[in-house]
């Protein structure tokens, strides 16, 4: 294991350990996402949701869960005054990767639980589970990359809590189109070819976001 991997692993383990110690982040994500899914299912009471509408509602829930939960990774560092120590002991790219991977894991777990809850509550099955899973992984990677970067950008700003979500959502809205296009096909609406293209677009967007993020983060982390 080289020094890069050691640093990324150390940042990832630090995130996990501090989260498991307080569990405040996990509790926030769980409460927010479950409340959102229940609200959607409640609003759609007695209505049979079509594929497009169901995937749109699920995507909006995922989007706002990410905007609420993921910026915490950097905001808490500045609030607790541990950001300076992190600046001294790890390279910026390793800090970004460690936190982005933690956020990716958190989003994947949240996405899977949300999907299970959502489809159970609205009484709908998934026609193409593999396509659905690829769309979910691509969506979570894009959300994790973009929101982690936005969290880092606002960490030292005034009113950072609300600002992170406000600046992240315009970056993520284009993804909604791809996410809904892919997931609606996975739910059995539309041509499979279109769904596969959308899933490919989502994965590419996620890879691009996770690849550009460390470079941009390195340019601002020590400024």
């Amino acid at each position, binding site marked *: 294991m080289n020094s890069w991997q050691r640093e990324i692993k150390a940042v990832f383990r630090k995130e996990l350990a501090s989260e498991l110690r307080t569990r405040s982040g996990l509790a926030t994500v769980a409460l927010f996402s479950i409340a959102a899914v229940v609200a959607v299912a409640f609003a759609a009471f007695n209505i049979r949701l079509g594929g497009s509408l169901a995937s749109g509602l699920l995507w909006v829930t995922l989007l706002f869960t990410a905007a609420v939960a993921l910026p915490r990774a950097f905001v808490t560092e500045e609030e607790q005054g541990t950001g300076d120590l992190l600046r001294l002991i790890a390279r910026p790219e390793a800090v970004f990767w460690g936190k982005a991977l933690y956020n990716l894991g958190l989003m994947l777990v949240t996405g899977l639980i949300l999907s299970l809850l959502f489809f159970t509550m609205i009484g709908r099955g998934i026609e193409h589970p593999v396509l659905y899973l690829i769309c979910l992984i691509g969506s979570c990677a894009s959300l994790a990359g973009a929101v982690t970067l936005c969290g880092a*950008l*606002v960490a030292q700003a005034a009113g950072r809590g609300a600002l992170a979500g406000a600046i992240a959502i315009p970056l993520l809205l284009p993804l909604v*189109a791809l996410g809904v296009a892919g997931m609606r096909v996975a739910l059995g609406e539309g041509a499979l070819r*279109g769904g596969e293209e959308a899933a490919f677009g989502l994965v590419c967007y996620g890879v691009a976001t996770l690849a550009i993020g460390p470079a941009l983060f390195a*340019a601002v982390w020590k400024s």
Partner: protein
Amino acid sequence: MGAATLWSFMVPDAAMFQKPELARIFFFHFPCAIVTSIFLFLGPYLSIRYLVSKTPEWDVRAASANELGLLFGVFTMATGILFSRVQWGAWWQWDPRQTSFLLVLLIYGAYFALRAAFSDESKRAANSAAYSVATALPALFLIFVFPRLPQVESFHPTETIQKGLLKGDYGNVTLVMLVLFTVLAAWLYKLRVRAGLAELALENMNGNLEAHSGSAAPTGVVRPVPVSREG
């Protein structure tokens, strides 16, 4: 610009619109959209220059490009909404291009919200530059990919120019307007950068004067306060 506007009213009405005489708003809408798209990619480019050089002048240029992008974006949106009402019968149609332009305006709004949240100039410049670069990917998607997705249906024609359908006086006026709006945008950009650099020079001069006169930033001096033993 005035002569071109007069000329735009003298060309014959376009035949394929609901209200041909009111379709002339296209002569203003189309150039504004093109100029916004140029600024949408100029902003991230100038931000990269800032991140590489860390010179405040590049931040002034990037912020100026984004300000003008927002200005021309608002013009595009306003003329588009008018066109939509006149030709398509509703102020807002959720047309993919209309929606993607609204998202572009939201991205600009987020950029300026981020800038306003920093009081420290270097942090403001670095963080907003990084955000501006990050917006290039969604901007590419919104302008070039999303409106052309096969499952997306738009009222906006996509191949009018490529197929040579914009011809005769209509084509000439459009071309002249495009050139004029591009020149106007370049002139406004130059003026805005000059004003921004003058502000920067003034701030630096004030900082130097304060440093020389010894009245620089307050240093947290604790003044002795007499306290009587009796309390």
